[in-house]
C-alpha cells in the first residue's frame, strides 16, 4: 500500500463514506484556496469568516437533522416552512406577551416539538411517505406563517437577537484578540489531542494494528493548525466581534449529534432502519419509534434554525426560510449520504454544507449575481453526486481516488463493489 493510501486509510478509517469525506475535505480546501486567490484574500479575512458562520449556521443546523432523516430513508421538505412558522409564532409571542428571551427560545423549541410530533405521527404511525407528509407540511406551515403574521414582518427585541447576531463578550486583559474565543480555541486543541490519544489507546485495546506514529503526528499537526488559524481569525476581528453565538450553538450540536449517531444505540438504530428496515425490525428495533424520532428531531432543529435566523435579521418575515430545505438536502448529499438511506455522517454533511456556503460566499464576494450562483450550485451538487455514483459503479470509492488514480502506479482499480451493484447500489432514484 502506498503512503498516500496509508494516510487516507488512517485518517479516515477507510470506509466508503469516510473515503468520500476525504475527497470532500480536499474539495473544501480547494474551494477556499481558489476563492482566496480570486478574491485577493478577502475570503479568509476575519470579517468574512465571521459573516459566513453567522449567515450559514442555520443551514448547517438543518443539515444535521436532515442527515438523520435521510439516513433513516426519508426526506424532509418542510424545514424551511417550519423554521419560518416557528419564527413568526415566537416573534408574535414576544410582541404580545413580552416573553423574556430564554422563555421565547424554549417556547420556539416547543413549537418545533409539536410540529415534529404532527409530522412524525403521519410518517411513523400512519405510514404516509415522508416526502408527502413534509410536502404538505411545507405548504401548511408556509401558509401558517403568512396567516399569523398577516404576510408582514414582525420585529424581535434586542435580547432575543443574541442567538443569531450575538458575539462572545470581551473579558480579561486586552490581548488584541477576543479572549473567550482564544480560550475556546485552546480547549478545541486540547480536545483534539486528547481524542487522538484516546483513539490510539482504543486501537491498542482492540489489538488492532497501531496507527503509525507519523500519521498521528500529521493528523494532529493539520488539525491543530486549522484550529489555531481559525481561532486567530475569529478572535482577531473588529473589536466586539468573535466567533458568533450561532456558531457556538452549531459546534455544540455537531459534537453532540456526531456522538449520538456514532456511539449510541439510538444512533445505530437509525442506520439500521435506513440500511434494511425489515432486518432492523427483526432485530428488535422499534421502527416506528425511530422514524418518529428522526422526523420530530428534524422539526425541532428547524425551529431552532428559524429562531436563529429571525434573531439575526431582527424580524420575522413571510419569506423566511425559502428553499432552505434544498440547501440542507444538498449539503447532506454532497457530504456523501446515500439517497436510499443507511449511509452518511454528520461530519460529512457539515463539510458538504461548508462547501456550498463557501461557494456561495466566494461567488458573492466576486460580485457574481444570484442567478449565476444558483446555476453553479446546482451543477456542483449534480456533479458531486454523479461522480460518486460513477465511482461506485466503477467499483472505486472516493472522489479523490479517481482523481489520483492516473498518478498511481499500482495495480488496476479494485472492483470491490462491482458485485454489490445489483443489490445495494445507491444510485439516486426518484422516490
Amino acid at each position: 500500500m502506498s503512503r498516500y493510501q496509508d494516510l487516507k486509510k488512517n485518517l479516515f478509517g477507510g470506509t466508503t463514506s469516510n473515503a468520500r469525506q476525504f475527497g470532500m475535505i480536499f474539495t473544501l480546501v480547494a474551494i477556499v484556496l481558489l476563492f482566496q486567490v480570486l478574491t485577493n484574500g478577502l475570503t479568509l479575512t476575519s470579517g468574512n469568516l465571521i459573516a459566513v458562520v453567522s449567515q450559514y449556521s442555520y443551514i448547517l443546523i438543518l443539515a444535521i437533522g436532515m442527515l438523520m432523516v435521510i439516513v433513516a430513508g426519508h426526506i424532509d421538505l418542510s424545514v424551511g416552512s417550519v423554521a419560518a412558522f416557528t419564527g413568526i409564532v415566537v416573534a408574535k409571542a414576544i410582541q404580545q406577551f413580552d416573553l423574556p428571551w430564554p422563555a421565547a427560545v424554549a417556547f420556539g423549541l416547543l413549537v418545533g416539538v409539536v410540529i415534529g410530533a404532527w409530522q412524525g405521527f403521519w410518517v411513523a404511525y400512519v405510514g404516509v411517505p415522508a416526502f408527502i407528509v413534509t410536502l404538505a407540511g411545507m405548504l401548511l406551515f408556509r401558509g401558517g406563517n403568512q396567516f399569523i403574521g398577516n404576510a408582514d414582518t414582525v420585529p424581535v427585541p434586542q435580547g432575543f437577537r443574541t442567538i443569531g447576531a450575538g458575539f462572545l463578550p470581551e473579558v480579561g486583559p486586552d490581548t488584541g484578540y477576543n479572549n473567550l474565543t482564544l480560550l475556546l480555541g485552546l480547549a478545541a486543541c486540547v480536545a483534539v489531542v486528547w481524542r487522538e490519544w484516546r483513539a490510539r489507546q482504543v486501537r491498542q485495546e482492540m489489538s488492532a494494528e497501531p496507527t503509525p506514529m507519523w500519521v498521528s503526528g500529521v493528523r494532529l499537526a493539520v488539525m491543530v493548525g486549522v484550529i489555531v488559524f481559525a481561532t486567530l481569525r475569529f478572535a482577531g476581528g473588529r473589536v466586539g466581534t468573535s466567533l458568533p453565538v450561532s456558531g457556538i450553538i452549531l459546534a455544540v450540536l455537531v459534537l453532540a449529534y456526531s456522538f449520538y449517531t456514532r456511539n449510541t444505540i439510538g444512533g445505530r438504530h437509525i442506520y439500521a432502519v435506513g440500511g434494511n428496515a425489515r432486518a432492523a425490525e427483526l432485530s428488535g428495533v422499534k421502527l416506528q419509534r425511530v422514524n418518529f424520532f428522526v422526523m420530530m428531531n428534524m422539526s425541532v432543529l428547524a425551529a431552532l434554525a428559524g429562531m436563529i435566523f429571525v434573531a439575526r435579521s431582527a424580524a420575522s418575515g413571510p419569506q423566511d426560510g425559502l428553499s432552505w430545505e434544498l440547501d440542507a438536502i444538498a449539503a447532506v448529499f454532497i457530504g456523501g449520504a446515500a439517497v436510499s438511506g443507511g449511509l452518511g455522517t454528520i461530519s460529512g454533511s457539515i463539510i458538504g454544507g461548508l462547501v456550498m456556503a463557501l461557494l456561495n460566499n466566494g461567488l458573492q464576494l466576486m460580485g457574481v449575481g444570484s442567478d449565476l450562483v444558483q446555476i453553479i450550485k446546482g451543477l456542483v451538487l449534480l456533479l458531486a453526486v454523479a461522480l460518486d455514483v460513477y465511482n461506485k459503479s466503477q467499483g472505486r470509492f472516493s472522489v479523490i481516488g479517481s482523481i489520483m488514480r492516473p498518478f498511481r502506479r499500482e495495480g488496476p482499480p479494485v472492483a470491490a463493489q462491482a458485485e454489490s451493484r445489483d443489490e445495494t447500489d445507491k444510485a439516486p432514484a426518484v422516490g
Partner: protein
Amino acid sequence: MNDAPPLLQMSSITKTFPGVTALADVNLVVRTGEIHAICGENGAGKSTLMKILSGVHPYGTYSGDIVYQGEQVRFGDIRASEHAGIVIIHQELALVPGMSITENIFLGNEPRRRGAIDWKGARRRVVELMEQVGLKEDPDTLIKDIGVGKQQLVEIAKAFAKDVRLLILDEPTAALNEADSRHLLDLLREFKRQGITSIIISHKLNEIEAIADSITILRDGRTIETLDVRVDGVNEDRIVRGMVGRELSSRFPDRTPAIGEVFFEVRDWTVRHPISTERLVCKNSSFNVRRGEIVGFAGLMGAGRTELAMSLFGRSYGVWLGGHVYKDGKEIQLKSVADAIKHGLAYVSEDRKAIGLNLLDDIKSSIVAAKLSKISRHGVIDQVKEHRVAEEYRNSLRVKAPTVDEGVIKLSGGNQQKVVLAKWMFTDPDLLILDEPTRGIDVGAKYEIYGIIQRLAEQGKGVIVISSELPELIGLCDRVYTVFEGTITGNVPRRDADPELLMKQMTSTKKMPTP
C-alpha cells in the same frame, strides 16, 4: 474422450479484492455440451470465477485469459457476455416481483414493432419459452404470486429468450424443494441433449453426483482438480475430500443428548395470512421444546413453518388470531420482536440478504445488532467491547474475513450465514429458532454449524431447526414435527424418524397420534 477443442478455457485467472485474493491462478476447461459442476467451500471463489466469466467483474479487473469458442474474449460487462451466448443466473433471483412473467422475461430485451413494445409477439414467444422449461402458468401471472421454484424457471426462460449457449447457474437449487430441484435437474439434462452447455455451482453434492459430467474443485481460490465423472467414478465422499482436503468421516458431529424438562410450549397457535383474510397459515398448532433438545420442523415449501416461527417471534408475520405461549410454565406475551428477544427467543431467518442482515453494515456491527444493550452503558456503545465480541465470534465460527471491520456485503454466502448465526448467538437466547440454517453452506461449514447447534443444546438451550433437507433433520434432531398446510401432522422421535415416514406425514392432512 473427445478431442474437439473445449467450449471454454479459462486459464491462470487471478482476482484480488482489497485484502483478499479471491482467485489465484485458476484454470477451468469446459467441453461443449457437458454439464460442468464447480464445487468448493464457502468463499472458495466459485461465484467470483463465474462473475468474471459473465463480465460482472469486467476485463481489466482480473488477470488471466478466457478463450471461448476458440477465441480470446474480454467481456467489459454483462451485455457483452450475453451477446456471446453466456447467461448467468445468480443465486439471488433478479426478477421484478410486481411484473408479470412475460414482462420479466423480456425486461431490457423487449421485442419491438414500429417503436412500440410488441406484447402480442412477446406473449407468443413466452408461451414457447415456458413450454421449453416446463413452466405451466399463465404468462400474465405476477412473479410475486408464484413460488421460488417457478421463479427459477422464469429466470431460465429469460436466459433462453437471449439465445443461450453456455448457461451458468449459481446455486440454483438452494432455495428449491425436492420436487422443484428434480425438475430443474431434468431440465438441465434436456438442455444437454439440445447441445447447450451448463455450468452449475451447488453445495448439494448428491445433485452434483447425479448430474455432472465433470467437476472442477476449488479450494481457497485455487483449482484443486477436475474430475471426469465417467472416468474417475466420483461419489460424494470423493468430492468432499477434494473440497476440504481431507476425509470427512461423518456428516454430523457425535453427541449424547442430555434432555431436560419441557420449558417452552405453544398451544393452539393460529395465524392468518397478512392479506387474504380467510387463509390460515397456522392452524391450532401446538408443540413444545425441552431443555437441551434439538427439535426439527419438516414440511414442504410453503407448509407454514417459517410463518409459524416468525409469528411466534414477536408477531413478525401475519395476523395473530389466537394461541398461547408458555415458558418455564408461565404464559408469556410476545407482541413485539423486542418482547421476544427479552424472553430469550432468537430467530435466524432463512433469507439472510433480505431480512437477516443490513448489507451496508460491517461484520462487527452486524454481530451485535440484535443486542446492543449488552455492549453499552447508558445507551453508549463500548466500541472496544464490540470489537472484542466480534473477534471472538469470528474466530469461534471461523468466519472467513480479514477483519471484523469488513462489510458483510463482501462475504461469501456461507460466511454471511455465520455472521447471522453469530448475531443471534450473541443475544444469548434460551430458544434459538433456525430457519434453513445450512442453505447455501458447504459441507465443512455445515458440520461446524451442526456442532454449534449441538453445543447450544448441551448448554441447556432449546433449538428449533426448520429445514427442507430430511437427512439433515434426521441426523441432527431429537424430535421432528411434521407440518402440512399449516397443520402440525406429526411428532416423530429420533428413533422412528426415517425419510419415508416423515415424507408421508408431511404430505397428509391426517393428524398422526403422538407417540
